[in-house]
C-alpha cells in the first residue's frame, strides 16, 4: 500500500474517533481508538492497535487483528454480488445423502439422545464451533461447516436456505466497517444506543430541522443544543468557516460536547463558534469581567482572560434588547433542541435577537412544549407556525422477501417552526 502523508484526515491514528459497524450488522458504535485497546462489536472482538496507520474503510478480522480489504476484491472472490453473503449456488451447497427420515430413524433406536429438536438438526456442538474459530476459520468456512452439520438443510425451500445462510453469515461475520465519523453516523449511533441523551432525535428529524432553517455558509445562527451537540455540529459544518454561531451553555466554558469532539472540526471551522454562558445571558453582563483576576496569574493567562472578555462582550452586542420582544435582531435563525429546558423561558430571552423574517425551529420530545410554544409564538409575531411529527421505517429489501422490519425504534420528537414578523 502507498505511503500516505501523516496529516491525511482519512488516516486512523491514536486518539481518532471511529464509527464501528459489522458488515450487515444492526449495531453501530462511536468509539475513540486508544492504545492497547480491544474493540468489541456484536461479539466480534479485535485489537484496536491493528487499525493504526491504516485508512478508514472495510476490514477483515483474522485472529483478532484487522486487515484492510477492498470491496471489489471481495465481491470478485465470493462471487455473490452481495457483500453480506459469502456463498453462491446455495441450493446445491450440500451434497450429503442424509435426510431427516434417516435421522429420525436413528433417534428411535438411540433412546439416550437429547430430544431437543434444534440439537437434533445440528451435529456440530458449541465446543466444536469454538474450536474451529480458534483454528482461524473465517465466517465462510464456519457457515460451510454448519451447513454440512445441518441434517435438514436439503429439505428446506430455496428461500429458507438463503435465510439460514444469511443469518449464520451475519452471526459469524468477520468483516467490519471502520468509518470516519459524520453527523449522520454519530446520530444513528446515539439514537440506537442511547436515545434518551439526545432527546430521541432521529436523523431524519435532524435533517428536517436543517432543511427548515436557512442555515448556509455565512449565516448568523443562535443555537441551544441539549442533544449532545448534534444540532450544534450540524450548524458548524453547514457554516463552513464563515458566519456566526452563538451557542448557550452551562457553567463558564463550553466543554464535553460529544458530537463536537467526534467531528474533530478544524480551528477554522470552530472560529465561527461563540459560546455564551447562561449566566451572561441572564444578567447581560460579562461573566469573566466580574471574576477577580488572580494575583499570580501568568501573562498568557491574563491574555486569555482578556480575549474571553472581548469575545463575550461581542456576543452581548449581538443580542436583542431585554424589553422589546418584537425587535428585529441580528440572527437569521434561532435553533433550539431541548430535552429538559422549557422553551418558553428561552424564547423570552432570545426572541428579540432574531431578525424579521428569520426562522425559529424548535425540537422537543415533550408534547407539552409544542402546545405552550405554539401559543407563545402566535402572541409574539410568529407566523407560518407548523408542528410536525413523523413516522420512520426501515425496510428489508431482498428479492421475494421485501417488508418493513418487524421491530425497530419508533421514538422521536416534535418540530415546531415559525417565521418572525414585524408587528
Amino acid at each position, binding site marked *: 500500500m502507498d505511503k500516505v502523508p501523516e496529516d491525511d484526515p*482519512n488516516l486512523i491514528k491514536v486518539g481518532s474517533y471511529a464509527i464501528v459497524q459489522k458488515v450487515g450488522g444492526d449495531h453501530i458504535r462511536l468509539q475513540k481508538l486508544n492504545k492497547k485497546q480491544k474493540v468489541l462489536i456484536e461479539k466480534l472482538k479485535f485489537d484496536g492497535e491493528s487499525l493504526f496507520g491504516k485508512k478508514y474503510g472495510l476490514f477483515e478480522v483474522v485472529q483478532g487483528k484487522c486487515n484492510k480489504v477492498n470491496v471489489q476484491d471481495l465481491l470478485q472472490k465470493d462471487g455473490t454480488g452481495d457483500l453480506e453473503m459469502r456463498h453462491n449456488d446455495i441450493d446445491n451447497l450440500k451434497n450429503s445423502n442424509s435426510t431427516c427420515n434417516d435421522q429420525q430413524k436413528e433417534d428411535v433406536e438411540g433412546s439416550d439422545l437429547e430430544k431437543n429438536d434444534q440439537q437434533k438438526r445440528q451435529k456440530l456442538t458449541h465446543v466444536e464451533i469454538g474450536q474451529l474459530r480458534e483454528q482461524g476459520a473465517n465466517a465462510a468456512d464456519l457457515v460451510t461447516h454448519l451447513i454440512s452439520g445441518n441434517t435438514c438443510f436439503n429439505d428446506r425451500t430455496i428461500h429458507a436456505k438463503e435465510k439460514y445462510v444469511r443469518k449464520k453469515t451475519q452471526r459469524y461475520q468477520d468483516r467490519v466497517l471502520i468509518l470516519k465519523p459524520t453527523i449522520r453516523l454519530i446520530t444513528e449511533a446515539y439514537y440506537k444506543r442511547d436515545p434518551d441523551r439526545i432527546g430521541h432525535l432521529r436523523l431524519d428529524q*435532524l435533517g428536517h430541522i436543517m432543511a427548515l432553517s436557512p442555515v448556509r455558509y455565512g449565516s448568523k445562527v443562535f443555537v441551544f443544543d441539549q442533544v449532545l451537540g448534534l444540532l450544534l455540529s450540524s450548524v458548524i459544518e453547514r457554516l463552513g468557516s464563515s458566519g456566526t454561531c452563538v451557542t448557550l451553555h452551562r457553567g463558564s466554558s463550553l466543554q464535553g460536547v460529544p458530537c463536537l469532539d467526534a467531528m474533530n472540526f478544524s480551528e477554522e471551522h470552530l472560529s465561527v463558534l461563540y459560546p455564551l454562558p447562561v449566566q451572561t445571558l441572564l444578567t447581560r453582563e460579562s461573566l469573566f469581567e466580574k471574576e477577580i483576576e488572580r494575583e499570580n496569574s501568568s501573562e498568557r493567562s491574563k491574555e486569555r482572560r482578556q480575549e474571553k472578555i472581548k469575545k463575550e462582550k461581542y456576543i452581548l452586542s449581538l443580542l436583542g434588547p431585554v424589553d422589546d420582544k418584537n425587535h428585529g435582531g441580528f440572527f437569521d435563525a434561532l435553533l433550539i433542541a431541548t430535552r429538559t429546558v422549557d422553551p418558553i423561558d428561552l424564547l423570552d430571552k432570545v426572541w428579540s435577537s432574531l*431578525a424579521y423574517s428569520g426562522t425559529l425551529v424548535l425540537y422537543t420530545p415533550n408534547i407539552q412544549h*409544542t*402546545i405552550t410554544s405554539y401559543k407563545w409564538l402566535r402572541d409574539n409575531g410568529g*407566523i407560518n407556525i407548523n408542528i410536525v*411529527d413523523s413516522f*420512520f421505517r426501515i*425496510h428489508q429489501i431482498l428479492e421475494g422477501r421485501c417488508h418493513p422490519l418487524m421491530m425497530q425504534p419508533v421514538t422521536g420528537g416534535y418540530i415546531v417552526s415559525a417565521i418572525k414578523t414585524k408587528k
Partner: protein
Amino acid sequence: MVNKNSDKMEIIEKRNSNFMHNEELIQDGDEVVVYMSYGELKSLKIKSGESFNMRFGHIHHNNLIGIPFGSRVQATAGFVYILRPIPALWTRCLPRRTQILYTPDIGAILMYLDLKPGSIVCESGTGSGSLSHQLANAIAPTGHLYTHDIDKLRVTKVIDEFQTHGLKDVTTAVMRNVCEVGFVVENKADAVFLDLPAPWEAISWAKKALSKEKGGRIVSFSPCIEQVIKSCDVLRKEGFVQVETIEIIPKTMKSVELFNDNLKAFDKRVNVFTDSVERIIPCIKSNNYKNEKGKKRTFDGSVVEVNESELDECDDADFSLTTKTIVSFPHSQPTHTGYLTHATLLPYF
C-alpha cells in the same frame, strides 16, 4: 442600486437579496415570498410600478420597496406578510413542473448525502428544482451541484431560477440522460442523488462520477417498491456498502383549545355543536346556555319561563373549563411519498 448623499461623498452599494445574500430592506428587483394565510404562499419579483392581485385585494410594488423583510403589509381587502425567500419556503411556493420532494424527505436526503460547504453533488433529474435549491444552499460557496434532466424546458427554467436566487455560480444544469451517457463529472463527486424512473440503470454511472480516492454517498428516491428491489440489487453488485431503504411519513399538527366540561356543565350546556373554543366569541363563552334572563330553550326549541330557584341551580355550573392540546391538521395528509435508498461507496483504486 447606488445611494448618493450630497452631504457625504460616501457611496453605499447594495445588492439584491437572494438565497445567498441578505439585505434588511426590500429593493426593486428582489424576489420575495408573500404569505397570505396558512398554506397560501406566493413568490413575487418586485418591479417598481407594478401591482400584485390576490384574494385579499391588491398591493402596489412601490409600497413594498424600502420596508424590512418580515413586515406586515395592508392590502385593499386584508393584510399579508412579506418574507425573505429561503429554500424551505421556496419548496412551498415554487412553480411546479413535476412532482416535487417536500421538506421532510429533503431533510433526510441532505443528511444521508453528508453534504457540507465544498461538497460536489450530482443530481438527476432536476424536476422543478425543489431539492436542487436545498442542495445548492448546503454546498455553497465552494462546492458545486451538477443537475441533469432529459427535458430541455426544465433545464432552462431552473437555470433562470438559479440566476435569480444567487445560486448560479455553484450550479450547473445540463440536459442529459444519465442512464445512457452518465454524469458530466467523473471521479470527482462526493454524493449522487437519483430521482429517476429507472435508477438501477444510472447506478454504475453514479459510481463512475463518485471520487475513487474519497468514496462517497448515494441516495435514490423511488415511489414503488419494485424500483427499490432492482436498485438495491445493483447497488450491492457494484460494491456499495451500508445499503438501506427507509420511508418517512410526516404528520403536521396544530394546537387548539377545547372545552373540558365536567358533567354538570355538560348537562346544562345548550350549544352542543361547538367543540372548539376558537369558534366562540369570548364574551359569551360562559353564558351561551342562556338566551335571555329568566328564559331558556327546551329540547324542541320552544322558550319557557324559568323560576328563580332553577336559575340559581344553572349558575352553579362552570362553562369555561378548557384544555389545550394538539391535533392533526389538516385532516388529510400524505401517507406515502417514496422510499429513500441510501448507500456508501468506500474509497477504491
